């Protein structure tokens, strides 16, 4: 029987081990390379979305088939978003934004399937994605503008005394971006899965109480179904939010002056 506490669904366990690498002659200081369930679902997400996009656009029909249309809608949706929030120069980063969106979307949706592992409920995954985005923003901003990138922290058209207040706030808000970007995705997916599991647990524990409990367990069951619908919306929305925030931050790197 599967464990019923709400947090054990996020356990990472080893599926198979590649053995220890990097150990010295005493066999110490090495680390074990393992393939975990988290890695399995990350690979599954990448394989799923890549094969779908490759196979559906293989025909390159002038009149798109149904599967090709889904890929084209996805492309147009993200391309429009990048163009409106980061400008035409931002389209250089379209592959990054599209990959992030597609990966997070498919990983979230895979995680919604019962007994499947939600990759984005691990803070290390979302933090890695957020740090990748911030790394690209800082690297591109400094490479393109040099010290001009610091104009990001100095809004134009503000009297000098207020600058002493505004600049620290701008710096603080920039520093909190990777934190909020990673915690938002992580917190949403984690909280959603825990709430879903808690309501599903109510069904089990109520129906164990006898006939009256079984009748009463209809209520949490209906709630669990409704929450699944809400979670599907949140999963799609968080992927979109991550993509739109990425393109807004990239816009800052491309045009640092306010």
């Amino acid at each position, binding site marked *: 029987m599967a464990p019923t506490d709400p*947090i054990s669904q996020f356990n990472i366990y080893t599926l198979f081990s590649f053995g220890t690498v990097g150990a010295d002659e005493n066999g110490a200081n090495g680390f074990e390379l393992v393939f975990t369930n988290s890695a399995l679902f990350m690979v599954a997400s990448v394989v799923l979305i890549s094969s779908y996009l490759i196979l559906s656009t293989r025909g390159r029909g002038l009149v798109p088939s149904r599967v090709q249309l889904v890929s084209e809608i996805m492309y147009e949706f993200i391309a429009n*978003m990048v163009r*409106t*929030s980061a400008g035409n120069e931002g389209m250089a980063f379209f592959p990054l934004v599209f990959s992030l969106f597609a990966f997070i979307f498919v990983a979230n949706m895979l995680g919604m399937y019962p007994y499947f592992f939600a990759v984005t409920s691990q803070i290390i995954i979302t933090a890695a994605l957020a740090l990748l985005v911030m790394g690209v923003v800082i690297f591109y901003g400094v490479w393109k503008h040099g010290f001009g990138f610091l104009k990001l922290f100095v809004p134009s058209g503000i009297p000098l005394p207020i600058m002493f207040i505004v600049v620290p706030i701008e710096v603080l808000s920039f520093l909190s971006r990777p934190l*909020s970007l990673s*915690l*938002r995705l*992580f*917190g*949403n997916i*984690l*909280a959603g899965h825990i709430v879903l599991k808690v309501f599903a647990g109510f069904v089990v524990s109520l129906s164990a109480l006898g006939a009256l409990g079984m009748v009463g367990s209809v209520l949490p069951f209906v709630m669990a179904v409704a929450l699944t619908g809400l979670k599907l919306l949140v999963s799609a*929305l968080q992927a*979109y*939010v991550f993509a*739109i*925030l990425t393109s*807004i931050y990239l816009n800052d790197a491309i045009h640092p002056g306010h």
Partner: protein
Amino acid sequence: MEPEAARYIGAGIATIGMGGAGIGMGMIFGNFLSAAIRNPAAASSQFSNLIFGFAVTEALGIFSLVIAFMILFT
């Protein structure tokens, strides 16, 4: 008081912060809706701004939720 009990109470108190995020999100969507009804033609062009405001507000609520999880599970 038992330390374990204090931990659960603390986690409960930490989630109060989500109420503020709830108020903020209600204001965002309410104001968007009232503006969208007055000028429906301009509504769709402001959708990304809506989502941006929603995301930034929501992050603050998620912070308090994460604090609650940290109290509970670490």
